[in-house]
């Protein structure tokens, strides 16, 4: 089963709509704004080695006392160790983006196939899987992620795994409800009548129709993954000290709030908000563009 075919279908479904985004009113603008925000942050993070004025982990920059407020030399100020906040902003999205991307991949690779198989075959398999997924879904996501991350220990992949487990049920529910209605449609019945095998019905006939919803849930899930990653970092289950990370800066900057050093938390915090907002807007817009029936 060629993955390229499906990727092709996604592009075919999305591309012509991007060209006419501006004609599609609010949904178009939302999608456009979301893509611009997300793309800019990706580009900024990739370009960090070339655009940041200082080494993000170099300490004792500029004149003491640290932390020092924004100035001409350090537009976003320095933190308590005398690190340049602007450089840390440029570099700091990397961990969070990696965690989010890996966790979404985990969800796609595990959640979607399970949902397809379980809901297509129905019966006891479907019931059992649904029960497991519903139990996870009902749980406070962050608490479960904390429990898993606490056992797995720090690291990008471990964080991504603990977040992935929490969000697999969201994918499962969306895909399952779609498959349940699609598999009763006449064209699927027709395929079965002409003797198509189950595997081929599932992947060639049903999967392509599920793809738009998966794209939407994955995009919205990016925002959740980023907020959960920030939350894990906040409770002390993030990446180790050496790596510049918005979540880390936001967490450790708290200690300096009483001295009025607002810049240590303000800029990393705003970057996280912007990133989560970008993905949310993108998801909202895509959901209206790809599934116009959902909203009028």
């Amino acid at each position, binding site marked *: 089963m060629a993955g390229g075919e499906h990727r092709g279908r996604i592009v075919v479904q999305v591309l012509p709509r991007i060209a006419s985004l501006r004609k599609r009113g609010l949904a178009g603008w939302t999608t456009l704004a979301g893509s611009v925000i997300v793309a800019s942050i990706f580009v900024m993070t990739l370009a960090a080695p070339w655009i940041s004025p200082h080494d993000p982990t170099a300490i004792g920059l500029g004149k003491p006392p640290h932390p020092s407020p924004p100035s001409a030399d350090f537009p976003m100020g320095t933190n308590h160790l005398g690190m340049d906040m602007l450089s840390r902003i440029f570099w700091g999205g990397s961990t969070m983006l990696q965690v989010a991307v890996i966790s979404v991949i985990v969800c796609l690779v595990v959640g979607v196939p399970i949902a397809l198989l379980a809901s297509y075959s129905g019966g006891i398999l479907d019931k059992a899987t649904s029960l497991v997924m519903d139990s996870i879904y009902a*749980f*406070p996501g962050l608490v479960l992620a904390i429990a898993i991350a606490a056992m797995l220990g720090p690291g990008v992949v471990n964080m991504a795994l603990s977040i992935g487990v929490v969000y697999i049920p969201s994918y499962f529910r969306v895909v399952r409800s779609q498959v349940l209605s699609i598999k009763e449609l006449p064209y699927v019945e027709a395929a079965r009548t002409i003797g198509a095998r189950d595997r081929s019905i599932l992947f060639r006939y049903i999967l392509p129709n599920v793809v738009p919803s998966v794209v939407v849930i994955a995009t919205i899930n990016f925002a959740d993954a980023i907020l959960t990653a920030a939350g894990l970092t906040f*409770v002390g289950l993030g990446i180790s000290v050496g790596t510049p990370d918005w979540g880390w800066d936001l967490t450790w900057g708290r200690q300096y*709030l009483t001295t009025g050093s607002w810049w240590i938390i303000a800029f990393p915090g705003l970057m996280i908000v912007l990133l989560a*907002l970008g993905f949310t807007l993108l998801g909202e817009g895509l959901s209206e563009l790809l599934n116009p029936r959902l909203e009028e």
Partner: protein
Amino acid sequence: MSLRSYIVARVLLTIPMILLLLTMVFLIIRVMPGDPADLHFEKRVDPEILAEFKHRLGLDKPLPVQYVDYLAGLLSGNLGSSMQDFSPVGQQIFSAFPATLELAIYSAAFAIIVGVLLGVRASRSYNSIPDHSIRMFGIVSYAIPVFFLGEVLIIVFGIYLGWFPTGLRFNPRIEAPQGLQLGGWRLATGLYTVDSLLEGSLTKFAESLRYLSLPVLALGTVLCGIFIRMTRSNMLETLRLDFVTSARARGIKERAVVYAYALRNAFLPILTMMGLQFAALLAGAVLTETTFSWPGLGRYLVTRITFRDYTAIQGAVVFYGVIVALVSLVVDILYAYLDPRIRF
């Protein structure tokens, strides 16, 4: 299906869900890479001490025996003993929970009231500037990490303006609310706003509200986005229905049409949303409590992570899971009672 048999079926479905959840938590703590006892001692430790430690916590028994012990313990309300000081985890959790509950109740009330009012307002001016700004507010509030919002509120209202305390649950210089005392008998809920009223002290009531304000504002704002969206889309649908038009045609005031007629009908999905959001509320409370040093269950969990106290982590996670399962059970039953179609 009658309401009674629906309730029975729903309760029966809750049991395997809770059991599954308990098993999952058990497996996460025991079977995932890294033995909890080894992890607890970060550095190398004398094997004898480690063996004694494991024995004391029952971690040296075979896994199936541990599992049975764990379930049997839970049935009698025993959540194990802490790795930190061997004190019973259950007691610590029960004493921390009222703080979380109080924070959760007020935040949910804030989120629902603000969310529903803004949602109704947006639906009344569909596709206009107020509608767009309210929707935008909903989306942005959803994208803010609650602890960042909390920190901003601390800087602005706590440190810069000095209006509200920046942390803790009650003024340390005053005795905490004791509840109603009649002779040797004491009635206390653990919710400070209620206990201070039971005690008859308005000063303490005002003080507990003052300490609640910033955490509730942070958590409530983050949660209200979903209620805005839910109310708005439901109201848009309902306002278009015939009974609304006929109410208007009868000359009933627009305000009454919107709030008494339409909102009442749009309220069922909002109720379901409340049930679903309860888990999100507790998850948000973990971060809010940590931000404001609020002595609740979330803060307990987070402190225990630093101590690598895995029995306490397990206990707290189990407690969260059971609470959420029970709340969703109650919401579903309430929903079935209000809307008989659900039962079929």
